[in-house]
């Protein structure tokens, strides 16, 4: 008799996308999932540049100063500044909107989901996966004896996978222009780079994997080498001429698909 693996999944629409939490620990209170979603809703209310009453919107309009905001705002803006420097200005939260308003969205989702994962771990869970609109934190194992199998969407056909990776205790984030158009630009020029169809980054932190995928995508072909040079992070790109390029470290994660 094989005992069925307990799987609890909840999905909520937050931050303009769907976030699903898939908890595999049978002995952990499901309340931890509710706590994580409550946190994510709170982040959305505070950081959304699309909500006029959010602290980020009020900060951007000069109605608040940083000291009047929640401490998390300073933390996120500090992350944004680190990434602006690390990407030589390709990522710039102060320059990614046409109207020049502050928009830290490129960092907020990954950061918030990583904190949500910490909340679930605090409740005693070791085996779960959070998928926030295609950006993933995978902890532990989905069932005894194997790691999480993460499909990488084929950028030209949502029913196909370009590849499958096997991971544990890792984040996987993908940037591309096939879902929402040319929204990723080099903040220095405001121009989208059209050399890649998608760029997937795997590494220990979703905050950085997500930000690196976005910045690397904006860099185009150079972005693969740029991400690969970040210690602990691996990159996999599908180019506009339908080739894949990936780093040594990513090759070690592939279980099937191109590059196997």
């Amino acid at each position: 008799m094989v005992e069925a693996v307990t799987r609890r999944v909840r999905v909520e629409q937050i931050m303009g996308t769907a976030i699903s939490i898939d908890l595999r620990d049978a002995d952990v209170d499901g309340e931890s999932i509710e706590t994580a979603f409550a946190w994510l809703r709170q982040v959305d209310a505070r950081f959304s540049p699309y909500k006029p009453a959010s602290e980020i919107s009020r900060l951007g309009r000069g109605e608040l100063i940083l000291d009047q905001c929640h401490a998390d705002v300073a933390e996120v803006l500090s992350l944004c500044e680190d990434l602006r420097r690390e990407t030589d200005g390709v990522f710039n939260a102060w320059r990614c909107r046409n109207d020049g308003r502050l928009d830290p969205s490129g960092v907020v989702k990954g950061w918030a989901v990583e904190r949500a994962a910490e909340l679930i771990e605090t409740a005693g869970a070791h085996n779960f996966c959070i998928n926030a609109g295609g950006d993933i934190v995978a902890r532990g194992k989905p069932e005894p004896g194997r790691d999480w199998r993460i499909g990488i969407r084929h950028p030209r056909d949502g029913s196909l996978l370009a590849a499958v990776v096997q991971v544990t205790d890792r984040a996987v984030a993908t940037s591309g222009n096939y879902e929402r158009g040319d929204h990723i630009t080099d903040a220095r020029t405001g121009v989208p780079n059209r050399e890649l169809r998608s760029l997937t980054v795997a590494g220990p932190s979703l905050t950085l994997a997500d930000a690196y995928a976005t910045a690397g995508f904006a860099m185009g072909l150079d972005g693969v080498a740029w991400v690969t040079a970040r210690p602990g992070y691996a990159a996999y790109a599908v180019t506009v001429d339908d080739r894949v390029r990936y780093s040594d470290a990513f090759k070690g994660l592939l279980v099937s698909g191109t590059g196997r």
Partner: protein
Amino acid sequence: MPTRAAVAIVATAIAVVLLFSFKTPAQARPRTPAADVQATPTPSASPSPTDSSAPTPTPSPTGPTYKDGQYTGQDFPNQFGDTQVKITISGGRITDVQAVQLPFDRPRSAEISQYASPLLHDEVLQAQSAQIDSLSGATYTSDAYAQSVQSALDQAHG
């Protein structure tokens, strides 16, 4: 002559991997049993890409057989930089071809090695049959989620 044969295969593999223009399966049938790689183990010493669709003479009635193992070709300069092709032969047939991208000529490139290869038809997987736990992709909108593979994965529990 296994060694000479292997050199010929590597040369052919370079031609196949680098000079063919494979299109993605979005408009083609996925999972076509395309023998893209196995189809052309011609023993000619300098294959030309224009020849590769022509019938190739076979030197022996049983066709060429090759010694099992892995063989790496010479550097091959191309639009992506220098590339080497590594092939794997088992059971006398080519079972794998990989284009290994050599480090870029730029700072910090010493520790960066990249691979580059076409997104081959027969390596693309149907999401529904790939037995994945989760799907990574560019951020979808709340509306697009309903139609996504991730939505199906999220519902397939209990």
